[in-house]
């Protein structure tokens, strides 16, 4: 197992290099020289030239990329061109918010989506099932900012129940988390439903029933464990993508998360900042996927066997 984990971690290196290359090239395709962005519209020409030179913008692309990677390998990811602070300073300041949001949203999505999905599958074609499915499709089709703004107007302004912004109090996280979680819950509901439907047709479920097991035992002990695999994959992907930041929700609720930082950085062509953000997110994403795989092994002995060999 340890060997497997190490192998996966080693595999992270080429993937991160690839991600770095993709982002670095895209950022270099984006027109505009950083100097004009840093200095503003009214800065004189010489100042721009000088700054571009300082930032190494006049070197060929490959040289710059190699320099970047070289420095990064030495732990130096550079300073933000915009704020002149080490790139990770700002990221780390924002990461807690992002993690609270992502974890909260995923938890809520799972807590809502999975039980409702199971209920839907167990009572297939019932009124409840139809209602669940329609509501789920509805939720997954609502644009995020619409949901966000509407919930602010309703809960923060009309009802004055919850704050509309800020990341100071726990209550401030409620609305953004709900907004983020609903589409995820909808997706998980549909996935859980279809997976469970498939699994309750399996022979071993019939075996359990033939032993005299009650529906509760059949569903929770026999079916759910087997249905968990696809569910955690999707939940993991969802969590991963949430960690990448959710620009829209962050902006609507004024949550200082990593997503809005990345967007700001892309907009101001702040290459070191963008690189650091995306690399960190990609690394997190890969780690989450690794975790998901390990969780697989924990839940499914067949997969465990494959790793331990």
């Amino acid at each position, binding site marked *: 197992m340890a060997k497997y984990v190490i192998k996966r971690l080693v595999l992270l290196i080429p993937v991160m290099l690839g991600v770095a290359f993709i982002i670095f090239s895209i950022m270099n395709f984006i027109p505009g020289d950083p100097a004009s962005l840093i200095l503003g519209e009214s800065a004189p020409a010489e100042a721009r030239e000088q700054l571009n030179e300082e930032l190494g913008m006049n070197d060929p692309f490959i040289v710059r990329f190699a320099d970047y990677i070289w420095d990064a390998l030495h732990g130096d990811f550079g300073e933000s061109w915009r704020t002149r602070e080490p790139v990770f300073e700002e990221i780390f300041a924002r990461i807690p918010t992002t993690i609270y949001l992502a974890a909260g949203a995923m938890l809520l999505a799972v807590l809502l989506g999975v039980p409702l999905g199971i209920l839907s599958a167990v009572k297939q074609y019932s009124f409840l099932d139809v209602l669940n499915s329609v509501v789920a499709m509805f939720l997954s089709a609502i644009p995020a900012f619409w949901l966000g703004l509407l919930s602010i107007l309703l809960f923060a302004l009309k009802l004055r129940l919850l704050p509309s912004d800020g990341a100071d109090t726990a209550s401030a996280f409620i609305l953004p988390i709900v907004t983020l979680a609903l589409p995820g819950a909808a997706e998980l509901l549909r996935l859980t439903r279809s997976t469970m439907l498939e699994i309750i047709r399996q022979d071993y479920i019939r075996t359990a*029933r033939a*032993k005299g*097991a009650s529906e509760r035992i059949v569903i929770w002990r026999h079916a759910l464990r087997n249905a968990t695999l696809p569910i955690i994959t999707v939940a993991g992907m969802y969590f991963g993508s949430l960690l990448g930041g959710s620009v829209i929700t962050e902006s609507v609720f004024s949550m200082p998360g990593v997503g809005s930082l990345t967007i700001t950085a892309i907009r101001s062509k702040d290459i070191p900042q963008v690189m650091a953000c995306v690399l960190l997110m990609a690394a997190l994403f890969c780690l989450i996927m690794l975790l998901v795989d390990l969780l697989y092994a924990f839940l499914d002995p067949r997969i465990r066997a494959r790793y331990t060999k």
Partner: protein
Amino acid sequence: MSEQLLEVRDLRVVYESDEETVHAVNGISFSIGKQETLGLVGETGAGKTTTALSILRLLPDRIGKITSGSITYRGEDLLAKTPAQMRKIRGESIAMIFQDPMTSLNPVLTVGDQILEALELHNDEGKSKEELDRRVEEMLELVSIPAVRKKDYPHQFSGGMKQRVVIAMALACNPGLLIADEPTTALDVTIQAQVLAMIGELKEKLETSMLLITHDLGVVAQTCDKVAIMYAGEIIEYGSVEDIFGDRPHHPYTVGLFGSIPDLTVDTDRLKPIAGLMPDPTDLPEGCKFHPRCPHCQEQCKTTRPPVIEKDGHLIQCHLFAKEEEAGV
């Protein structure tokens, strides 16, 4: 005949979907006495599994329906039981071994846990965890699997071992009746022999009755006391093994079935298969269901359902013998 453990009378089962109705079982009757083994034989799709599932009331929800008949176990009507009462019976009084050992075990639970579960579900005496654990080990050893392997998962077992685990699970609560649905079809001959031998031994030891479903006549000849031959949802011939394998008059389908098997002991140039194929269960022929394939088909067979003729407990459902009988009388 001794007191009957299980009695099935005029059972009819259909599978109904929006599109079509499959008449899977069409009025069959049979009974199993204490410590008896009944072999249920028939081609694919004859309705064997359906019959078994009906006894345990495990037909698929909504689609599978018992339309008439009665199933009595130890004098009690199973069809009148509530779901909770039924759950008590399943596993404890009547246990079942399913067709495919590879998929009948839950891949994420240890085999020990799966056997233990059956015990826990029917632990009326309130035995302690240790006692139940010991019983699990006992059961595993009974089917020749070292007790230490109870912590293993199904994928770590070979097909034959998995089937043995399923058997251990089914026998864990000392059921009065064991339904074995083609317990060896998915296995190799050598493993098949092992498993069959084991079931036989255990049956003796635990004094269990058995309903053995198969389409392998060889297996029937070696293990059963009574045989019912099914065709298109009906029992067309029923009797003791001697009746079926002996030199008596048989239903033309039974004859065809025997003719289809290459005999290891006799050399034949050609096999004599039954012509044609099973009828479509959604659109069964009128009269005798076998008539389109029957070499002795007469006008009458096409229109009227043949009567059941009994001769010393050997039942045949065929016009051919009805006539003989008439002629004889």
